[in-house]
């Protein structure tokens, strides 16, 4: 009867695959599976170099390619492909059939590696992209730009232009300019306002109601006044907590694609968090038991953010699983190249199965009354999920009603060699 909700952050598994692999490490020699697509031989780079041999027009590139490629080095001495590879924005070179001949490293990083001869129309299926590609091929020379956005795995927005390399090469360039940052800031602002106004309304209404009462009927009643002031105090504190949580969530949403580069000893980190939670645990009448090895376990990550993850998980365990009287915090790694697992387990009432898939949703509460009473904001697990997405880690939740709940964080192992390096 155990239910297991593997809560992958949107698209995270897809991402783990590409990131744990070697994408971005040595493009542009893209992987070449033996598929029905593969015709002709040689890597994309070779094929393109053959096509380009002799006629890359030096005067046009100045316009088409960004400043990074201009410099003291004469363009004539550089192979055209190296030029394209040096472009910091995603760039594809394709032919009349919309077959991709070359993808630079930025393109592989942004959209995943592709195999030789893949059709650009398959890679970018949006109707307006198809139009843009068709236009570029048909018009032979003139260029046009459109806005293109992808929603999954994370929201990204680009300004895309397609143009011909020109002068009889029969080759075309598709260039992406990342505009996600600006878009994300806009959205963050809109989301923040929408959520804040929605969630702050209830406590605000209550505070303003009490103020009215204090001015009117309860003006000369010291007992009621004290009572009301206490409630107002609680409500304002709740608003403050909400704003804090919303802000930290918004900050996290700003940069879902930057992977933290640091290295953290999970054992030491968990130990620290457990100590800092002793107070809250004592208040809830809960003892925290530690079950992790004495030797350090290293994972890639940002120390402060991971502290927040485990603080939130342990806080939840105290608040909602406190009835069980104890919390078990454990960490383990089966082998040096195995995934690292850290679990916070409580022995409380557990989470009913139908709620498990949804608990990381924003403002989703299993039980609104308990959540309010425990000063929950409904954002704790959303924050956890966001941080873990950035860490390429995932959260799984296992629970059995009446037996408690276990929240396990699965970290990908550090690449070989990294673990032995001093911090």
């Amino acid at each position: 009867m155990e239910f297991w909700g593997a809560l992958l952050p949107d698209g995270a598994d897809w991402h783990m695959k590409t990131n744990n692999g070697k994408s971005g490490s040595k493009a542009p020699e893209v992987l070449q599976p033996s598929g029905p697509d593969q015709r002709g031989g040689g890597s994309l780079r070779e094929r393109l170099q053959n096509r380009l041999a002799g006629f890359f027009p030096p005067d046009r590139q100045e316009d088409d390619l960004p400043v990074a490629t201009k410099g003291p080095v004469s363009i004539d001495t550089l192979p055209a492909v190296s030029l394209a590879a040096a472009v910091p924005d995603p760039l594809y070179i394709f032919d009349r059939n919309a077959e991709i001949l070359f993808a630079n490293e930025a393109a592989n990083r942004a959209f995943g590696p592709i195999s030789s001869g893949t059709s650009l129309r398959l890679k970018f299926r949006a109707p307006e992209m198809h139009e843009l590609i068709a236009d570029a091929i048909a018009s032979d020379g003139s260029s046009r730009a459109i806005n293109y956005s992808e929603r999954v795995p994370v929201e990204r927005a680009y300004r895309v232009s397609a143009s011909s390399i020109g002068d009889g090469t029969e080759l075309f360039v598709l260039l992406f300019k990342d505009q996600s940052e600006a878009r994300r800031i806009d959205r963050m602002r809109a989301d923040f306002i929408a959520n804040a106004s929605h969630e702050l309304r209830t406590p605000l209404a209550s505070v303003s109601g009490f103020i009215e009462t204090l001015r009117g009927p309860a003006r000369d009643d010291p007992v009621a006044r004290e009572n009301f002031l206490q409630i107002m105090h609680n409500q304002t504190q709740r608003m403050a907590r909400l704003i804090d949580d919303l802000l930290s969530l918004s900050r996290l949403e700003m940069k879902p694609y930057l992977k933290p580069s640091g290295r953290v000893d999970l054992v030491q980190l968990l130990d620290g968090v457990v100590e800092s939670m002793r107070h809250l645990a004592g208040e809830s009448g809960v003892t925290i038991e530690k079950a992790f090895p004495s030797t350090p376990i290293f994972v890639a990550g940002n120390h402060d953010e991971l502290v927040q993850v485990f603080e939130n998980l342990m806080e939840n365990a105290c608040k909602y699983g406190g009835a069980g009287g104890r919390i078990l915090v454990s960490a383990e790694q089966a082998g040096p190249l195995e995934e690292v697992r850290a679990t916070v387990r409580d022995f409380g009432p557990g989470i009913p199965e139908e709620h498990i898939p949804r608990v990381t949703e924003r403002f989703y509460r299993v039980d609104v009354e308990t959540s309010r009473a425990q000063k929950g904001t409904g954002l704790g697990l959303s924050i956890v999920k966001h941080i873990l997405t950035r860490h390429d880690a995932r959260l799984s939740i296992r629970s059995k009603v009446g037996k408690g709940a276990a929240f396990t964080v699965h970290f990908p192992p550090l690449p070989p060699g990294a673990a032995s390096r001093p911090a």
Partner: protein
Amino acid sequence: MQTHHTMRSFDDELKYLVDQIAAMGGYAERMVAEAMEALIQSDAGLARKVVADDVFLDEKEREIGERAVIIIGRRQPVAGDLREIVGAIRISSDLERIGDLGKNIAKRVVAVTESKQPVRLFRGLDALAGLALTQLKEVLDVYASRSIERIGFVRDRDEEIDAMYTSLFRELLTYMMEDPRNITPCTHLLFCAKNIERIGDHATNIAETVHHIVTGMQLPLERPKEDKSHRIIAGPGAS
């Protein structure tokens, strides 16, 4: 542009089919995303656009079907080429269905948003649609890249969608019990949720077809389907 005039070789014909599937996929993805946006933003104009877009998918499906028959008749393909063509027919009909489901969501926009609905009604549905869209994109990416080792994830996600659908079903029922005025919008939203869940199923179908195109083998049937909507406790869960 490629039209039948410029089509010379068998290769070109196959490529044309695959390109048409890509175009259909792009439209289907777009329709579902826009239908959800229209629903959440109460945008009746966008909803009408989605409904109009469906014509494209219907036409393309018919075109792919006809062209596939012509290719089979004229070229007598075997093995991988034949699977490619039959696969194109299957995928195009799945995509056409996805378009229909997207259109159906768009048609409900006006009914749901006639009166102002609280945000909480849409939150779960939005998350569910996010999952389904991710799944659809992944499947079409697998079709593009032929990297079938990623297909396992598609199925896992389908289970996630099913679990979420069940949970959403209960949530919407609660709202209806709370206040009878919620019954109309919530019923529509239930259908929307069901549509999204069906989109996930079609995406899984496409994944199976792609697997068959690439390997020539069927994916093992490992998914016992059961409707958990009316049950509170699931049977023994997978590990």
